[in-house]
């Protein structure tokens, strides 16, 4: 049985039927959009290549985001009311800047002389949300050191969240 869409595609379907016996079927939707020589392997490889290129682009384009405040964070404002000149790991912030981000929706903390945006980490912290929320807007060096000492894993996570250094 030819489905209703078949009637819409009837003309290209008939033309392709003449070109190749493979298209003497009841599934015309493919015939309009895909060239005749299209094969499963070709489509699979194409989608695989497109996936690889897209993933590479996401990683490449997202690289600078690694050290930038997340979308959830508010625009950083310095103690003098002026935003920092630029964002990046070498931006410097005062304790007043950090205290301005003391909420769950915008959570900054100073640890070991560096400033971190912990907002996106709150819901993912293996030790629970409360521990991180308690650090928002404060110098969390002591709490971090007491809990993690010199463990490598927390350090690698922190490196991704760093937004600058403490003035």
């Amino acid at each position: 049985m030819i489905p209703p869409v078949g009637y819409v595609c009837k003309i290209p379907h008939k033309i392709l039927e003449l070109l190749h016996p493979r298209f003497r079927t009841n599934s015309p939707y493919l015939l309009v959009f895909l060239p005749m020589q299209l094969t499963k392997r070709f489509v699979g490889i194409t989608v695989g290549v497109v996936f690889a290129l897209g993933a590479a682009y996401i990683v490449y384009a997202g690289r600078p985001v690694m050290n930038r405040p997340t979308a959830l964070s508010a625009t950083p404002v310095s103690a003098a009311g002026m935003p920092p000149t630029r964002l990046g790991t070498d931006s410097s912030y005062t304790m007043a800047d950090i205290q301005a981000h003391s909420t769950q929706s915008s959570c900054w903390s100073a640890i070991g002389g560096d400033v971190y945006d912990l907002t996106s980490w709150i819901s993912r912290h293996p030790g629970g949300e409360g521990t991180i929320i308690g650090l928002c807007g404060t110098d969390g060096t002591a709490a971090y050191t007491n809990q993690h000492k010199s463990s490598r894993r927390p350090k690698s996570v922190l490196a991704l969240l760093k937004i600058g250094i403490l003035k």
Partner: protein
Amino acid sequence: MNLASRVVLRWSWALLFVWFGTQQLLHPSQWVTFLPMWTGYFPIPAEMLIQLNGWMELCLAALLLLGCFTRLSALLLAAHLAGIAVSVGGAIGVRDAALAMAGISLALGEPDAWTLDMKTKKAPEPSTV
């Protein structure tokens, strides 16, 4: 299952992932809360992980829409959704688990006649005996 029901199941399931994937690519910060905690140890930011996941879902959904490697792509997406269901839990987990079952049913059945899999399937050799 007849042809129409299988096509509707395949397309609607693929479109679900097109929507998921598009939203994850465009608004990754809104999806960060769904990430399990252990992904925090991945050496990439949460938003990027969400975008990569969204892109993977879009590509697999494209395969499913075209009907190319239908069973494999349905199985991968179903396993992915089942993993999310277990990780998220609660009402959302139950919903995702039920959706994953729809994918399992796609993976278990023979691809429908409108898939590229069936288009490119070689006809059986005529018996010479």
